[in-house]
């Protein structure tokens, strides 16, 4: 019994320490304690103030753009193979739901060319499914697997672009994530803490990323001033100074003097993807890109005249890559010698970001003023503390010394709950507070259940120690049933609910788990210590 109690005490102290550490860390001053506490209990936008935007990526735009490029390519190929046609066009679905219906209609392929046409299609357009309408007309639809990949890429890219733009504002703790439980809603959630009026952010998000490939005049310079000093403080005509986007492992800023007028813009970029550099064995990474016909012509002239010089890839005035031109490049090129797969993938994404212009539509916008957030916290806090104090007083009056057990368990429960939220990086929102209120209610209930049971056993004439034993034993299954039922319902709420409903479920599950620990395990241990060595104890303060 005594060793058992000691193990229990060790477990409890360890949990308390872990929780307290999770909440406040090792503060060295009162200010730091406050700061750490604020850091670990992250308040949701509804309590803290800030803006929350939900937008939908119009993925059908990306598919239509892909179809348009395919039409261009197809016309070129048909011309090259001397196959005649009457007309090639595509339909024009307007909503996200109809995105999968995009199709290319090919009309008037002469019956004599059928086999040549079919060969071309299987050879060069394997990512499209060809359906024959009649002897001269055909439909093309994108393969379902490619369709899914394209839509996913579009959303990913949009998230990345928006993230870059929001980061330019220098706001803190912004998040840009995919939204909605199912990925097929193509929704993005943008959260901007402490921003009352998201007008500027929306303006910034609304503009399309500007991609530019241009020639490098001079660089790198460690700072803007250093670059300007080279030219007596005045930039040469038709040039601009741009900064390299910081990358992991790079040391300090790098500035380049580049040509203001780009050779290639986003409209010329057809596609780009990361791949392994085969010439260097399996070690290097590269990014392949292809340009439109028109762009390829211009790029060929430019690269032909500038072999040995450097070019820069810019996205929204940030240099994302600088590379040396090795040879004349027309419509197909590669940027080699990239440091890692991530770098190659990022570069491909930057290059594509101008070429897949999927629009966005705002579905939801909420901004909670900091004043309202502060008010509701203040009032909710005062009311919550008042309620809790009342509960504590009643418990102490009604259950006397045993009431202390319950109060300690209750306080510990709250600490464990908050610490878990902090460890899981969960955010505390208003529905989350509803979950906490229910947790506290059920915690009070567990204690009341146990105490009432002990009283009953005492009334029936049992000795104190066995009454406590029986009280905990009999209340245990009731507590299990009530808790498991609620946890079951929380699982469903989490699986099928959205946003706020989920926040409620998560907080409640953590709270209930903590409650089983505090109301049963901790409270029992306190009783054990009280009773140990007093087997013949006649009276219990309950």
């Amino acid at each position: 019994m005594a060793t058992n109690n000691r193990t229990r005490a060790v477990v409890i102290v360890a949990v308390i320490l872990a929780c307290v550490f999770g909440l406040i860390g090792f503060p060295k001053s009162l200010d730091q304690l406050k700061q750490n506490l604020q850091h670990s209990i992250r308040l949701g936008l509804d309590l803290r103030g800030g803006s929350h935007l939900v937008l939908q990526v119009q993925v059908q735009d990306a598919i239509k753009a892909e179809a348009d490029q395919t039409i261009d390519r197809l016309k070129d190929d048909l011309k090259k193979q001397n196959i005649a046609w009457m007309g090639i066009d595509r339909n024009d679905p307007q909503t996200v739901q109809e995105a999968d219906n995009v199709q290319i209609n090919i009309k008037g392929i002469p019956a004599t060319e059928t086999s040549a046409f079919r060969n071309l299609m299987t050879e060069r357009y394997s990512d499209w499914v060809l359906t024959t309408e009649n002897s001269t007309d055909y439909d093309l639809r994108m393969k379902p697997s490619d369709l899914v990949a394209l839509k996913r890429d579009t959303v990913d890219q949009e998230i990345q672009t928006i993230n870059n733009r929001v980061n330019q504002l220098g706001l803190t703790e912004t998040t840009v994530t995919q939204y909605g439980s199912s990925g097929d809603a193509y929704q993005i959630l943008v959260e901007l803490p402490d921003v009352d009026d998201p007008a500027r952010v929306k303006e910034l998000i609304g503009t399309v990323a500007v991609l530019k490939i241009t020639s490098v005049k001079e660089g790198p310079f460690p700072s803007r001033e250093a670059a300007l000093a080279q030219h007596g403080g005045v930039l040469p005509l038709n040039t601009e100074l741009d900064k390299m986007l910081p990358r992991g492992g790079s040391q300090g800023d790098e500035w380049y003097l580049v040509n203001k007028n780009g050779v290639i813009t986003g409209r010329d970029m057809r596609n780009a993807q990361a791949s392994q550099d085969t010439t260097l064995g399996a070690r290097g990474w590269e990014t392949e890109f292809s340009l439109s016909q028109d762009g390829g012509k211009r790029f060929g002239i430019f690269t032909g005249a500038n072999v040995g010089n450097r070019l820069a890839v810019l996205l929204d005035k940030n240099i994302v890559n600088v590379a040396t031109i090795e040879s004349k490049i027309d419509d197909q090129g590669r940027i080699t010698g990239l440091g890692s797969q991530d770098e190659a993938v990022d570069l491909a994404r930057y290059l594509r970001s101008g070429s897949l212009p999927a629009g966005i539509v705002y579905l939801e916008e909420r901004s909670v003023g900091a004043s309202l957030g502060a008010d509701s916290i203040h009032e909710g806090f005062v009311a919550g503390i008042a309620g809790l104090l009342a509960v504590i007083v009643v418990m102490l009056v009604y259950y006397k010394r045993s009431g202390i057990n319950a109060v300690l368990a209750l306080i510990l429960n709250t600490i464990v709950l908050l610490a878990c939220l902090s460890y899981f990086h969960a955010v505390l929102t208003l529905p989350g507070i509803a979950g906490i209120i229910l947790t506290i209610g059920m915690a009070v209930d567990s204690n009341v259940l146990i105490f009432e049971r002990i009283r009953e056993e005492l009334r029936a004439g049992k000795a104190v120690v066995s009454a406590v034993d029986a009280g905990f034993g009999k209340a245990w299954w009731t507590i299990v049933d009530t808790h498991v039922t609620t946890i079951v319902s929380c699982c469903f709420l989490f699986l099928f609910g959205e946003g706020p409903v989920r926040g409620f479920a998560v907080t409640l599950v953590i709270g209930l788990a903590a409650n089983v620990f505090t109301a049963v395990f901790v409270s029992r241990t306190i009783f054990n210590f009280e009773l140990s060595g007093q087997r013949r104890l006649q009276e219990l303060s309950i």
Partner: protein
Amino acid sequence: MELFKQTNFEFLRWKWPFIGASLVLSAAGLISIALHGGLRYGIDFKGGAQMSVKFAYAPPIEKIRSALSQKVKGEVSVQNLTGNGSQNDVVIGTELEEEKQLNVNRQAMADALRATFGQPASGKLDFNNASQEDLLARLRDPLARAGIAMSDPQLQSLFSGMLRFRDTPPRSGLITDFNQLSGVPGMTPNILTVVRQECYLSPYHTGDVEMVGPRVGAELRTKALLATLYALAGMLVYIAFRFEWIYGVGAVVACFHDTIITIGLFSIFNKEISMTVIAALLTLVGYSMNDTIVIFDRIRENLKFMRREPLEQVMNKAVNQTLSRTVMTSGLTFLTVVALFIWGGPVLHGFSFALVCGIIVGTYSSVFVASPIVLAGHYFSDKRKKRARIVAPAPAPRVESVPVGQRKGPAKSGNPAKTGSPAKVVK
């Protein structure tokens, strides 16, 4: 101290008046919903734009309405929130027909307010509706010109201090005199003079703005409803597994009953159902379920040693045994919720209202709705068993003569009555 010692009330004998009251309340709620033409959903569920604005004086509702009606398409509603622990707050709502209006309406609402209550002609910045960025853009140069040298970080911290001061209660976003700002850390009389030159104080402050597209609203509504229904089904299955299926039905019907009555009360008092209210409804389902299971658990325990007594008796005993606990727990939680209702402020008002109703209804539904359903279920299933026995009687014991050669000692004690299950005591 003990409230109840060995009580012996016959709770289930009074079930009918309570069931009657429940039916009346539910019916009243449903009728009210029908008369109102459906529930009054908050912006989360119906979509629309909503702006809460705090005024420095009693808000001129009609003036706001007419100012906005000219600028904004669709119906404009202006609701005065003064009363529920808040002062001079209004909520302005407009309809949104499609997603595209989301952007237009916010701007139009802000413009209309500025034109009516602000001083757009003065060319100054409205301090009560300014953000930190606005202040920085507006004040940086004038401060420099006035000979006050401050770096950007210094300016940022000064402005954020000013805004924090403005936004904390009791100001709550609205100051009425620039002199109030003199207590802000880093503020000097010189800076205040510049602020005074460049800014003015409008008599209103825009708090939170919510805009929800109509499609999202409908989606959110369906999802919340579905999640709740699945959760109820999950609980039913668990309770059926731990007890009997009729107990699961009783508990879930009790929860349904509580939710319907609470929603009905929302309709009767013409309150809005918002996402926070949904969180409150989920909470009350949790409370009610908890309460019901505690009583069921006690019934199950009592059944072990009260086999010969009618179920109603067993239930009464269970309710009496748990009476202290019920009163303590419900009383304590009720205390907390009432505190929230009184002092929680307007944001928590709907939430705490739902819980206040829910705890009262949820506590009595465990005794007067869930238990009677279990009782009725057992009553009917026993009755059916009895009837089944009359239709197909157990085979009567037959007496046959056994051939002499096969007799093996004395016949084993054949008890012909031992055909069915042990007799049950039915009222």
